[in-house]
């Protein structure tokens, strides 16, 4: 694994650049960057050092990422989406999509199917991770008004 600190910083910047294209207000840039970088470095640690499969490593990485989103959302009184939409990007299986197409073209049926299946697994891991953490009750600033 390459220099983790440098990976953290670059991942944070990548997330912030996505935040700019989504018009995130600038006061949230740092929080967005931290969310994305924590997800990416956790993924790297699990995948490169821990030897987990990409899908499992993604699942493990989504957990602290989503938790941070929710903590920042409460702390800075902003919608969770604001952090989640930007922070999730380093984990989205762009490489999986690319290699599926690449092997498809080379008539490597087995590799293509393997990559396509892995892409699906990573997407499901992201879904599952977000769902798990979203279910944890956290203190809110205001309760929903009861009718």
């Amino acid at each position, binding site marked *: 694994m390459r220099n983790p600190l440098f990976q953290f910083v670059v991942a944070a910047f990548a997330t912030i650049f996505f935040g700019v*294209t989504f018009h995130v207000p600038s006061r949230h840039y740092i929080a967005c960057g931290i969310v994305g970088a924590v997800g990416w470095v956790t993924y790297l640690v699990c995948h490169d050092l821990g030897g987990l499969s990409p899908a499992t490593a993604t699942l493990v990485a989504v957990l602290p990422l989503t938790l941070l989103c929710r903590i920042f959302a409460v702390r800075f009184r902003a*919608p969770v989406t604001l952090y989640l939409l930007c922070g999730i990007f380093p984990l989205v299986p*762009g490489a999986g*999509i690319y290699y599926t197409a690449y092997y498809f073209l080379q008539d490597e049926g087995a590799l293509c199917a393997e990559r396509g299946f892995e892409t699906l697994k990573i997407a499901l891991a992201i879904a599952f991770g977000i769902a798990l953490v979203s279910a944890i009750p956290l203190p809110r600033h205001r309760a929903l008004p009861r009718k």
Partner: protein
Amino acid sequence: MDMNTPETQARAMHLVMDAGKLLLENGGEVFRVQQTMQIMADSLGIEGFNTYVVTNGIFASANACNEVRHIPSVSIHLARVEAVNELSREIAAGSLDLAGAETRLKEIRSLPARHPGVLIASAAAGSACFGYLFGGGLPETLAALAAGIVESILVQLCRRWHISRIFSDIISAAAGTAIALLCRLLWPPLDVSTAAIGALMVLTPGVSLAMGIRDIINADYLSGAIRLLDAVLVAGCLAGGVVLTYTAARALWGVAL
């Protein structure tokens, strides 16, 4: 202000609908839109308010009037989502009346979108970062930057000319891969895949994926399914774009894959 005249009821209804539309078209989740509209309507004293929200439409009825909004396309502007959120909180706290809320909503709607140049630059910089993160060295990072620039210019042009998203995704993915391939002509040892993936990350359906999941978690299955379908469709378009470029490259120059 007397909230019980039919005129003010209609005005309040109009405000709540516009706020909901603003949220939905700028990237709010269905659940949030529904909740925000309900809170605003209760706080403004709209009688008999009920609403149903899906990915591209809002239906609401009240005793005074019924309204429908159609949201044909979503373009993510999270600053507006946050501002409407804040607005609803203030209305609920009672610190804004109807007229004040109308003015605020108008201000939020006119929150500027960033200059296209800034959007292109940040998307390209994002591509370069991903080129590095996925194991690229300096050449791959620079190639991803170049591919990202071309790609995001295309995305902006397609948006300006109202070209369908499907076509825009295919073309941009194809162009990004093509630039990465061209860079290899300049620098033969370049790892084309890493550079192309870096550029592709900007186009990946991360937004649809994350929002679809959140909709489904909140039991808005229909909206969630629409967004997840969108994510699958975009992923397919990107793969199609990559295939398109490689096929063309093989046919034209016989580039070894």
